């Protein structure tokens, strides 16, 4: 069963989400074309931030925008304002889900372990300043024109900036985001009807991009940990030019289990799809082998960030002496032990305040005893009439957890997600019959015997022929 209260939003959450929606209307028409209703929205927002550290910056920015005085610093303030609203929603919703699941104590402990003071303030190296400035400039132009009126001429000049950004490893987060946003704007702009824009999404991305172009995103301190890692699921996130594998699991250090994440990313091109994606991750061979066999990984001095994210070494775990494959474990049994609705829970991962947005909520959960209904949306139901929908919006092309698998499953491990005003569960692993099905189980096999010709192989050959230093 599910706690029923997750079906209802806290009243204040809905109010804030409505405000965000009002603000987004300014981005629809463009700040150069604001109408009285939009100015009223901005005044409302001003009243909300009065008495907060954003007050004076907002006063300046909103007054200037009212006078059609445009400078990128004002747009950075608008971005901070929207990010702050979304951050507040994140906090409220995280509190809601963790209190319903009786997990508040554990996450409080983690917070004490990861004080904000541990974050290192990074100064922007001088050579990156002009790059970030041109990103802000472009974002301002997009905001001025508005998403409905975007023309190719506003978009294409950004390619040069984007190329420089992609070559800068320090700015990988900015690059991943802006590459994805740019691709969408270029390909969807002309084919999406203006009443049907993914407005909330694009303003989300615009906001993140502006924040990332204002300062270097925080680099948390990392310290080495040794322990036993049991992977419970892998989430694949991708756009045409970058793919991230986010693996979730439980790391036990000195008998203390904690929930952990780890991320592996690779640049790619859109033609690389399906199983070929795994070929981009040869450095994850040991990790993916362990997952395929549901065997533990014994980690040796692997870096862990204060957020609870593990950072794998650049080379494969086995090759770098940082990890070895251990004993077999029962994935669902372990998931049930730690993440069933009634379980006592373990220490959780933590989001930096800068990064808080409802899209980042990912509360691990183990569920069983449900029936799958498909009347209006794919939903799990329990005999006590509690229910939760499946977060289908998170299911990518590489997900092995298909509708069919979910329909025939008896139990699942997944993440509670929030989007479009409601909670839903994203299954990462399901049990069908006696078998656990999870995304990424086949990856090890693909890496072990790669096909003779692959998209990656052919393009690498083309690249070596045509990209030779000229």
């Amino acid at each position, binding site marked *: 069963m599910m706690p029923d209260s997750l079906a209802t939003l806290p009243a204040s959450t809905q109010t804030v989400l409505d405000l965000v929606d009002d603000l987004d209307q300014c981005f629809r028409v463009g700040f150069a074309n604001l109408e009285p209703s939009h100015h009223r929205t901005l005044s409302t927002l001003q009243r909300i931030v009065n008495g907060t550290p954003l007050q004076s910056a907002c006063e300046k920015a909103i007054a200037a925008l009212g006078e059609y005085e445009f400078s990128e610093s004002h747009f950075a303030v608008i971005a901070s304002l929207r990010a702050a609203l979304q951050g507040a929603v994140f906090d409220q919703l995280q509190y809601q889900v963790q209190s319903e699941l009786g997990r508040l104590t554990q996450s409080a402990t983690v917070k004490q372990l990861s004080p904000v003071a541990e974050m290192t303030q990074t100064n922007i190296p001088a050579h990156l300043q002009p790059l970030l400035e041109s990103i802000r400039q472009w974002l301002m132009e997009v905001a001025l024109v508005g998403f409905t009126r975007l023309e190719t001429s506003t978009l294409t000049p950004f390619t040069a900036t984007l190329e420089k950004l992609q070559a800068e490893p320090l700015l990988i987060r900015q690059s991943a985001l802006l590459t994805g946003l740019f691709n969408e704007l270029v390909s969807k702009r002309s084919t999406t009807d203006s009443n049907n824009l*993914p407005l909330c999404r694009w303003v989300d991305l615009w906001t993140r991009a502006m924040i990332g172009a204002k300062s270097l995103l925080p680099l948390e301190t990392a310290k080495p940990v040794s322990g036993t890692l049991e992977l419970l699921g892998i989430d694949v996130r991708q756009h045409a030019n*970058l793919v991230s594998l986010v693996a979730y699991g439980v790391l036990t250090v000195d008998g203390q289990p904690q929930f952990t994440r780890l991320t592996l990313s690779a640049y790619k091109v859109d033609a690389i799809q399906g199983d070929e994606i795994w070929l981009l991750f040869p450095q994850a061979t040991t990790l993916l082998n362990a997952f395929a066999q549901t065997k533990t990984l014994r980690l040796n001095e692997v870096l862990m960030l204060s957020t609870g994210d593990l950072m794998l070494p650049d080379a494969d775990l086995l090759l770098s002496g940082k990890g070895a494959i251990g004993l077999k474990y029962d994935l669902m049994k372990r998931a049930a032990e730690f993440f069933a609705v009634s379980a006592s829970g373990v220490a959780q991962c933590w989001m930096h305040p800068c990064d808080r947005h409802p899209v980042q909520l990912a509360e691990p959960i183990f569920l069983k005893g449900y029936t799958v209904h498909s009347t209006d949306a794919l939903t799990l139901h329990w005999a006590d009439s509690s229910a939760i929908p499946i977060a289908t*919006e998170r299911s990518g092309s590489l997900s092995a957890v298909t509708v069919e698998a979910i329909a025939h499953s008896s139990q699942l491990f997944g993440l509670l997600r929030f989007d479009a005003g409601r909670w839903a569960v994203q299954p990462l692993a399901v049990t069908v019959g006696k078998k656990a099905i999870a995304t990424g189980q086949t990856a090890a096999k693909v890496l072990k015997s790669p096909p003779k010709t692959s998209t990656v192989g052919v393009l690498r050959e083309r690249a070596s022929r045509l990209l030779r230093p000229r």
Partner: protein
Amino acid sequence: MPFNSSAGILSLATWVGCYGADGMTDSSFMLSATAPSGKRDIKKVPFVELFGDRLQGVVSSGSDIERVYVSFFAAESLDFYCSTNNNRSCGGLGGYPCKHLQSLLDEAIAQYGIDAVVQFLKVPGDITQIQRTADIITRKGIVKKEPAGEVFSRFLNYLRYLELTASHRPIPEMSWFV
């Protein structure tokens, strides 16, 4: 109603359409996250994209491994051109799209799906009648000579993605992409 397993062949993405009509307006995700990707012939057409106002790309020469052709169709007019990357006009162009241009369209359809291609190109006429490459070709425009440089540098940039290194740091921004 219990789950009807005859629907099981549907991909999960299909279920995204099951939201209420106003449900997706405040979603951080897109209605259809993944394009219907057919099997691409990457050897023949290493690069195809819907970019700006053109469907453009690079087609391998059938005879010379060192040579590639740069081809495009313009949206709306369906004007087209094909040349080597050194701006030598393709010999197969006789007022009609050459075999490189036809391959380019085939591969665009494999990559993005016929609907996305037809929509992007704003192909005139009854679009329900457009089901394959030939249906687009018959609505072609005229030969429009343009330098190959821009597309070719987009292609080199495309290849460059495979040489870029990403890190093992968390990238929370990827939560928006599925």
